């Protein structure tokens, strides 16, 4: 067997873009496969890189089973959930491009939740908690909050072009925030006032941007366009 082939059976070469004090630094890493047939996920690569070559490499992870939503990174420029994203020879692993990078692959996440602070659950709820929710409601609560949906979102991009990004919360919305608001709108326990408040919050976050957008993509397969954007546009009377 020639040396190159042997190498490809035992190793996988990737580039990890580390980030310190505002500067990107590409680092080559040779992942040693634990068996020839192993198809490592991005998280396996990062764990081994930290063990063997970059002891202070910073990255988020949690459950390793695509449930907790914290390990999202960009692979070749596209958002992927690191614990379940198969990596191929030559791939580039980098922090998500859609959120401010702090260090290495760590992005700041809380500017998103803060934009809904005090805005959800306005308008009260019904007293009866024994109301059954629709299938749509349950589809929306299958969101793992991985933020893959931020990719190419024109509404979210406005946060970086029009306003300063170092504020405590984003001014403009994103598919996740809209999903949280639409969840309230489909919640059987919400009063009419609460549902209306949720829709006006969506408008405030820049819902009209969705009119000219081909649609967003969910990291775990929720039909964002059909179950979030379209109903919000309809209730807000921005579209029929």
């Amino acid at each position, binding site marked *: 067997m020639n040396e190159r082939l042997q190498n490809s059976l035992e190793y996988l070469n990737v580039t990890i873009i580390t980030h310190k004090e505002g500067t990107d630094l590409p680092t080559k890493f040779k992942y040693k496969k634990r068996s020839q047939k192993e198809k490592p996920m991005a998280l396996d690569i990062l764990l081994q890189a930290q063990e063997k070559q970059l002891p*202070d490499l910073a990255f988020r992870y949690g459950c390793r089973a695509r449930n907790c939503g914290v390990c999202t990174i960009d692979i070749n420029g596209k958002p992927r959930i690191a614990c379940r994203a198969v990596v191929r020879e030559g791939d580039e692993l980098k922090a998500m491009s859609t959120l401010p990078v702090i260090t290495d692959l760590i992005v700041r996440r809380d500017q998103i939740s803060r934009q809904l602070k005090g805005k959800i*659950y306005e308008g009260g709820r019904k007293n009866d908690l*024994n109301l059954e929710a629709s299938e749509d409601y349950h589809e929306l*609560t299958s969101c793992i909050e991985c933020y893959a949906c931020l990719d190419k979102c024109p509404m979210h991009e406005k946060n970086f072009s029009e306003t300063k990004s170092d504020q405590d919360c984003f001014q403009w919305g994103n598919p996740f925030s809209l999903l949280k608001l639409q969840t309230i709108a489909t919640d059987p326990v919400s009063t009419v006032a609460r549902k209306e408040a949720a829709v006006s919050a969506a408008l405030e976050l820049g819902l009209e941007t969705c009119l000219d957008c081909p649609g967003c993509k969910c990291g775990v397969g929720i039909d964002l366009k059909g179950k979030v954007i379209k109903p919000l546009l309809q209730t807000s009377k921005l579209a029929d």
Partner: protein
Amino acid sequence: MNIDLEWRHFDVLVIGSGGAGTNAAESAAKAGASVLLVAKDPLSASDTKISEGIATVRASGSEDDTEEALSENLKIAGSDLPVEEITSAFAKDSQTAYDKYRENGLRPEISSITKGPNSLPLPMGGHTRRRSVGHKNSGLAFGHANWNAIVKENKIEYLEDCWVIDLVTSENSDDIRTVEGAIVYDAQKGRILAIRSPSVVMAAGGLSTLYFPKTDTMRGNTGDSYAIAARAGAELVDMEQTQFLPFCLTSPPSFEGLLGGEPVTASYLGVLRDKNNKVILDGVYLRTRAECSAAIMKAVENGRGTPNGGAYLDMRANKKAPKSGTYFMKFLQNSLPSAYNNVRQAMNKKEAQCDELWEVRPSAHYMMGGIRVDENGQSIGDKNSNNGVQGLYAAGQAMGGLFGANRLGSTSLTEGAVFGSRAGFAAALYSRNFNNNEINKDLFLKEAYKLNDLLGQRGTNHASQLKIQVQKECWNNLGPIRDKKRLKKTQQFISRCRKDLKKVRIGKNLLWNQSLIEYLELVNMIDTAELMTYAALERDGSVGGHVRADCKDISIFSKPYSTKVKVRKSHIEVSKIDRKRTELKKLVEFKFKEQKRFLEAKLLRLLPMRFKDAIIEKRYKKIMGSKNQAPPIEPGSIEAAVGEQKVL
């Protein structure tokens, strides 16, 4: 020396944003307290979020369900180690705690009969009543509710990416410590916070990461709750009681540690084999998790382990039975869908179809021991609340005393909600007396200087790499089976580790300093592991999640006790606390039933195939009911290991 501290003042500081922390923050805020919630992971990313999403709601299925019945179920399951006041509080509040989740958006299926939350069709093992409610999207549904609880109003301040360095306490002449606040490292903003807060709710989860990657829980479980509380002077109970799930995956690396099955899903004919194909445990479905884990680990020790240090789970016989075989696969898939999903992705087709053996190995899942508290989550000592750490509260996995040696199915989500709420409320009330208290700045500065000294520490060691060594050590010598020699070895390892800590290289920068983060977590892991070794040596016998290979099983007829560990003047003190035993009559009845079950299982195995097949078919039909679907089983629960059932 120069250190920039950002001073903040709150009534209640909550550490952790899972089920326990969220409920604590919400109920403290409702009681009028100013609340800061800090978490090292993003908001609501916790074991609650990744759980199976089944909660205990008393009387949701059976009308005759009483608080006494639920409390007693918990106590017997925990081998009489649980504290009655705590199990009673759990039973008393399960419904109201669950409704708080519903107020924040948790939507169960509604029963057409009771018009309330629909409980699972059968009582979960160990429960004598139907009272477990499952949810669409499992733990994610709870994760969203927790997220909503924090974000919905402007009442609760929260900070992600924050590591608590230590609590700040003062000490009076009677050695009683009182919480003054905490020093917190905010990695996201690159600053050190001095949080003045008369009360702290510790809700930072468990310790399963001590065994990473042999765990199916969140990475953040580095024992922070126990280590931080112990350093502040709190007593901890039952620290040897870790729950391991025996049948977890060994490979590929991305799936290592995740759940594959439970004793009960091995079904009636499942057996464990070593690498030479020899049966090392039969009647697996009747065994406790600890028995299964011990059988696997003993084979490994004797050089008969599988390539990845486990054993083979053989379920082929279940499938081969002509009639009942057709039910088996359905039973396996339906009863533990998340686990079967892992198997399907991680193994090949023949293995996933149970035509080949599964390589399995135990994984850490849950910590039953923890901070010694009363029924309101307040840190206590032998003289009750008078000599615990004043102002320290705990809830969720951080607390001890509810589950003792074993945990009933569907109880952990309810635990977080019940004791989170209780602790948050009690902390808010306690803090009302401290409104205009002066800040003892020197106490804070002392802690902050310790952190300042660490920044820029020189050395050749890396904390992230030492962590891996600690994990290996914990797995080998403090894992599913233990003995005195190994526990002593771990203690020696720990003292060597403490020397290595002085040579860990730590960066100077404050903005997301990963080397500092790794160091802080490493210290918590070492401190927790050391406390566990003391408790594990004190408990010189096997009970519940603690298996001592060099000692006998502790009989259920002997006087039950909890172990207690406490740090005093940098020494660890260990002792026993007597617990109340369940009535003798009930215990005898239990023993009798246990023997009967094993005898039945043995007879079943010895029967010729056609008789065996017919009996098993009938059983599957009974479990799956008219819908031909097995009810879901929660990993870690008693019904997933019927050998742990202690219901009369």
